[in-house]
């Protein structure tokens, strides 16, 4: 019986592609030859199950929505809440918003206001850029660290 003709270079290239693309498995078939490469299972590193199993806080009411990174957040610079409070996008009701999606903003320019204890805190742009996303609406409660806008 003939020996396997192992194309080591093909294995290495597919393994590299697996790593690069982050996929779980690549199967390459050519006529009656086939090469399949699977990712190694993640280490079990089981996070303690107690947290997951413990009674979860009831779905947070609006006020207590947990800080979440929006999809695609990695692509821009997030603007996060430096204090818990209530968001306002306009200086006063009826007036236009400080900024809108697509606006070009400069470092230090006010993006929105967070009211905490009757004090209106202006939240400045942390860098020059364009407003890519506005993730909150006027009147929304926000937690410390919650992402408010994405600049890009």
């Amino acid at each position, binding site marked *: 019986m003939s020996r396997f003709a192992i194309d080591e270079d093909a294995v290495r290239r597919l393994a590299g592609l697996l790593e690069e693309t982050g996929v779980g498995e690549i199967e390459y078939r050519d006529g009656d030859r086939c090469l399949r490469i699977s990712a190694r299972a993640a280490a079990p590193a089981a996070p303690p199950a107690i947290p997951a199993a413990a009674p979860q806080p009831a779905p947070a009411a609006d*006020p207590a929505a947990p800080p979440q990174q929006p999809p695609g957040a990695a692509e821009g610079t997030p603007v996060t809440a430096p204090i818990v409070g209530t968001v306002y996008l306009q200086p006063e009701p009826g007036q236009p918003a400080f900024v809108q999606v697509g606006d070009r903003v400069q470092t230090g320019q006010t993006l929105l206001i967070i009211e905490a204890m009757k004090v209106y805190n202006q939240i400045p742009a942390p860098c020059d850029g364009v407003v890519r996303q506005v993730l909150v609406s006027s009147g929304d409660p926000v937690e410390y660290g919650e992402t408010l806008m994405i600049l890009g």
Partner: protein
Amino acid sequence: MFEKVLIANRGEIALRIIRACRDLGIRTVAVHSTIDSEAMHVRLADESVCIGPPAPRDSYLSMAALVSAASVAGADAIHPGLGFLAENPTFAQVVTDHGFTFIGPSPEHIATMGDKIAAKAAMSEVGISPVPGSDAAVEDDAEAAQIADGIGYPVLVKAAAGGGGRGMQIARTPANLAPALGLARREAAGAFGDSRVFIEKFIENPRHIEIQVLADSHGNAIHLGERDCSIQRRHQKVVEEAPSPALDASQRAGIGERAAAAVRRLGYLGAGTLEFLYDGRDFHFIEMNTRLQVEHPVTEMVTGVDLVREQLTIAAGGELPFRQADVRFDGHAIECRVNAEDARTFVPSPGRVREYHPPGGPGVRVDSALFAGCIVPPYYDSLIAKLVVHGPDRPTAVARLARALDEYVIVGIDTNLDLHRGIAADGDFNGGAYDIHWLERWMDGA
């Protein structure tokens, strides 16, 4: 009763308050710093709000963040717990000014009791004798000498704004007085920004006895007996028990009724604790804590009264559901403060708890926010659990304490469980024969 209470605290005391709220059907809002986002008090609350970074100054001590969190969560009351802002009169005022109920006494009472000289004066007026000494800050060394001669040596020089043993010096003879005054003033200025000092009689080997009181807005003020907190290290309580091995029922009733009458006359509201040094004959008032105490469970175990529930009832304007005559003292309870620290060096030991198994069975209560896999952050108090036992009598309670300590498993961080095991096995402790210096002597000898 309140619909929703925000708990301006963390750890086991936050959990304690959440449990009382749940028992009453009140919704709870936990607040947390970023490092506490997975903490037990967050998991067990109905809602949670992240209020800042780990540093207490920017989170659990930030009045703006706490009040703002109460606003966005729609809470109607704030429970301060203990530590952090629990005895800050400004916080009580700010909470009230923003339309929330502060679950605690009035800002005025908090402020008065926060100033040691003012507290002694206020208590003197309502019939509670402080430790003999100056009625106010001593102005100069001559006045100090005159007062010291009057009460007799040894005397203690203490900072008016003091606490935790800082700004405190003993003068055993007249020759030592001037140096003691100078050292105490310098320590007080450095620690509290307030160099005022006063003079007290130094009581040699007293017990620390404190009386738990509850007062509602309908004129009812009662006491729930004493706790003996003499087992201390560097003025930090380590083990507490009720009743005190040193008091009998008539002494208990005597000092208890005087304490209840005093808070009634003060118009005090809520839970409070009057602390005394007891020299075997007289009770000398030292201070009043205007909040829940760490060691409140021992009182709960012997009286069956849920102190946090009554705090909530009183703050909501309700009436205490029992009178002094209804309060019964049943059996004996002991609490151990379990700290994340080396049992011998007392160096704090934050970190991840890998394994956690609390003791169980009859007469055992554990108040702790620990769980396997949780983090004990380095930013906060090292108290991680309170083991409380109850038995029909003191020997049974001590036996249960030893049994429960042996069952307790905390792996991943150092704890002082071994210190507690040593105390529980000690002959003096088993005999109830100790004063406030006993533990330090015992540790030196051990």
